[in-house]
């Protein structure tokens, strides 16, 4: 008797976890990832059957040899993932993460080149400048939506382009920042660059630590503060939030500013990364291209269910398979394969929850059928308490 109650309480705990929203989001993400990878494999087979197995193997485990790089490349998309995911919690689609990211890069570059500050604080100021740039570019769609009822998707897209052009103009016009013969920015002074974490063969640096810390802070804000409470309420039901006296306009603007800050930090982190070669740094080519990391952030956010902690993991995962993808080029595959995989993952994650529910329903149906069979098969009362045990489990 004792055993059955202990085991049944353990099983109840397991049931609680499997029935929780977080778990089903997790399995939904796994399902989407699985389908995306399968699709990628099929593409590889079509492109070059002979190399497909080794290519795919690279995608799956290549990242293990490049863990430093995994962390390094995860950092900017962790930030843009937070930028998209945090806004999503409020029901806003921050497709403008690219523009905010680019602004962040520019502001960081500006602070790096134009301001002369002692080494210990220069990079901190550059990081903060990047954040401010992103905040500004997040503020704009926020205010358009809050005060003028303009859809934030359109505003963000427009300002992605406006930001891109503006930054390129400003860089090209600045003799200190720009080396026209190379069509690139000059090398940033060492004081502006982020401190490295010293892991061999990679640029992974302190920004990764900051990124994790910021994600944790956002988690706390969302779940433990009144601001987070208001944010989620507004995202779930805007009318009820208004009814309860919440200041919808202020919250929209605040949420977009914070989201913009995240993306701006991402851009700053990317730009201020230390180089392994002394005297050099990251450079930027102002060639009128929208920052890809802004769109990858959407994938990161969706895969992480818009939760800051989930986003930490999804950014690591995507960075991981991206490393694998670049290694697969050893077998002749182009790195764009991974972009295809990521796009497919997002497509499936859009209805992964639903697919999940269908799969679970099918499994439950089979389990219920099994029980009905068991009950039907047992005729006499001697075995009645065995049935009870099975039903209670």
């Amino acid at each position, binding site marked *: 008797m004792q055993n059955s109650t202990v085991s049944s309480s353990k099983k109840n705990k397991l049931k609680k976890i499997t029935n929780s929203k977080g778990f089903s989001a997790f399995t939904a993400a796994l399902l989407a990832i699985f389908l995306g990878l399968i699709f990628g494999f099929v593409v590889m087979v079509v492109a070059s059957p002979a190399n497909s197995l080794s290519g795919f193997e690279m995608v799956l485990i290549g990242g293990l040899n490049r863990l430093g790089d995994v962390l390094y490349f995860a950092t900017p998309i962790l930030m843009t993932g937070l930028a998209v995911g945090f806004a999503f919690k409020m029901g806003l*689609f921050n497709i403008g993460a690219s523009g905010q990211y680019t602004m962040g890069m520019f502001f960081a570059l500006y602070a790096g080149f134009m301001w002369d500050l002692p080494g210990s604080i220069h990079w901190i100021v550059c990081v903060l400048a990047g954040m401010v740039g992103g905040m500004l570019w997040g503020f704009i769609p926020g205010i358009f939506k809050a005060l003028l009822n*303009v859809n934030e998707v359109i505003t963000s897209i427009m300002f992605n*382009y406006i930001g891109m052009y503006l930054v390129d103009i400003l860089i090209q016009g600045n003799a200190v920042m720009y080396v026209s013969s190379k069509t690139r920015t000059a090398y940033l002074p060492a004081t502006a660059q982020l401190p490295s974490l010293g892991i061999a063969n990679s640029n992974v640096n302190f920004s990764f630590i900051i990124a994790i810390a910021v994600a944790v802070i956002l988690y706390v804000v969302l779940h433990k503060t009144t601001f987070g409470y208001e944010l989620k309420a507004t995202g779930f039901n805007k009318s009820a939030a208004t009814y309860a006296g919440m200041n919808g306009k202020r919250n929209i603007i605040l949420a977009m500013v914070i989201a913009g800050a995240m993306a701006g930090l991402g851009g700053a982190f990317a730009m201020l990364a230390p180089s392994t070669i002394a005297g050099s740094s990251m450079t930027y080519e102002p060639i009128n291209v929208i920052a890809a990391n802004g769109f990858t952030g959407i994938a990161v956010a969706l895969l992480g269910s818009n939760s800051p902690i989930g986003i930490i993991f999804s950014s690591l995962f995507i960075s991981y398979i991206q490393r694998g993808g670049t290694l697969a080029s050893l077998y002749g595959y*182009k790195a*764009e394969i991974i972009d295809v995989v*990521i796009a497919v993952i997002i*497509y499936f994650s*859009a209805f992964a929850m639903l697919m999940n529910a269908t799969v679970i329903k099918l499994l439950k149906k089979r389990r219920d059928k099994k029980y009905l069979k068991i009950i039907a098969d047992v005729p006499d009362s001697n075995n009645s308490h065995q049935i009870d045990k099975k039903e209670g489990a």
Partner: protein
Amino acid sequence: MDTLYYLIQNTLPVAIPLLLVALGGMFSERSGIINIALEGIMLFGALFGCLFVYFVGGTPMNPQVILLLGMLVAAVAGFIYSLLLSFAAVNMKADQTISGTALNMLVPAVLLLFSKMYFNSDGITTDVNFYIKGVPGLRDLPVIGKMFFQNTYITVYIGIVLLVISTVIFYKTKFGLRLRACGENPHAADSVGINVYFMRHAGVGLSGILGGIGGFFYSVGVMDGNINGHTGVAGFGFLALAVMIFGQWKPIKILFAALFFAFLRSVAYSIALIPFLDSFHINQTYYKMLPYVATMVVLAFTSKKSRAPKAEGIPYDKGQR
């Protein structure tokens, strides 16, 4: 005066893709499905259209015939790609914005992948010359001749024809009436026996056809028959959404909105020819921002009274009453 003719000649081939894609978006959203994937659909249609042109380019066919056939290929390609959206949105009741974004991200990646693998470049370039210096006969008409029948592409004429067809279908047919009902009150449509799922598939399908054609016309009229995975369709798919909203989801207003933006873009690229503006010596890139800034200004003033299709974005579920 010559400058004006020049500007108009440059505006029309740019306005047509915007117009067609915005019309496609209109059909989709008026049936109830938000279509963020227009950018991806355009590029997908352009990809296949250009591929067709590339393979057929060597043959002695008349370039305009190649263009027409390429248009059909692009239409079919756009339609097939849009099935991915309609499946996700209508059958799986998935979030339409997310599905649309995924489809947008997929195409540039596929295009780059494909081009790098088979063409060793970032896109597809074709050699066929679609440019029309002048339509025989019509080119000599006073005023109109220079405006509409010289230095142009047949995409403009096809586009106008498609606009007329779309407007008639939208307002004067049984199909159009039912489509609009599904985007306003799908439960009402269901209750009189209309198959809402089918109508929404049709709406998205039309946006696929028009989007594919629009994308191909973009590559013909704006990119001279080429398409590139990095620049894609330069945000035209998103601009088309703005045109659609500015045009309040109505065909004729959409036409004017498309002309407005295309004109501004033409001005942006032709500053050197406009002595008045050229004298300011402003960096040309500022003018490139003009269509986007103008969009924002217009939206700022018109969004307060904006009236979107009531049921758009909400997946239709028979069970809810």
